[in-house]
């Protein structure tokens, strides 16, 4: 168990550290790079939990597509050094306190759940064959509806981003 635990703690510290780096860094580009590091750490956690399909999908979708979109938009707007003035100290303090209170609530909720004795869960849950079986038998309707959702999001993004005054044909 030694290697497992060392890897777990390493991934945890990397994920938490880079998440803090996303929030606290001044430069938006370094925030994006920290976010990519966070996604890789979380995908490592998924692999540790034997959810291989989700780890690969995570890397492809998040670190591959979404972060590239973010970088494109940041480069388009040329936000190099951070040009935002700080929010005043009171609002920052309120943000930190509300985040801390949320953390305490989550911790308290975790304390009071009974620890269910793990009854030897089957270790092939995360394999893509079993996941695909569940996905396409039990969850066919959400699957099709999510394709409609993608279509509407794509159309919406194009409509929002269209420039005014396009030439008439």
């Amino acid at each position: 168990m030694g290697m497992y635990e060392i890897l777990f703690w390493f991934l945890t510290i990397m994920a938490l550290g880079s998440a803090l780096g996303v929030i606290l860094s001044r430069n938006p580009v370094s925030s994006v790079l920290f976010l990519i590091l966070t996604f890789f750490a979380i995908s490592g956690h998924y692999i540790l939990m034997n959810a291989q399909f989700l780890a690969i999908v995570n890397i492809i979708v998040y670190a591959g597509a979404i972060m590239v979109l973010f970088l494109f938009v940041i480069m388009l707007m040329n936000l190099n050094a951070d040009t935002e003035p700080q929010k005043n100290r009171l609002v920052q303090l309120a943000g930190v306190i509300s985040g801390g209170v949320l953390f305490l609530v989550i911790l308290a909720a975790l304390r009071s759940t009974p620890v269910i004795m793990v009854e030897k869960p089957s270790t092939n849950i995360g394999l893509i064959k079993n996941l695909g079986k569940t996905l396409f038998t039990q969850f066919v309707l959400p699957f099709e509806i999510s394709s409609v959702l993608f279509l509407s999001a794509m159309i919406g993004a194009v409509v929002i981003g269209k420039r005014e005054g396009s030439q008439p044909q």
Partner: protein
Amino acid sequence: MGTLMRRNAIIILMCIELMLNAVNLLMVAFSKMHGDSAAQVFVFFNMVVAAAEVAVGLAIIVMMYRKVHSVDINILNRLKH
């Protein structure tokens, strides 16, 4: 915490992505604990929703940038006047 503290709209969107990812991690852990694979299917749909939301959110930010040439969210306060 990052959503409340920063004024740059892009960083707020990134912190929302962080929150969605944290929920995903939790659901995968629970799925492993209970031996139920429905949670991993939910994680999959969560990623779908996050990807669609990022696309639309970035389109809105690009539109805002074209109007006011800044991504400061305090400028949006002007909508109430």
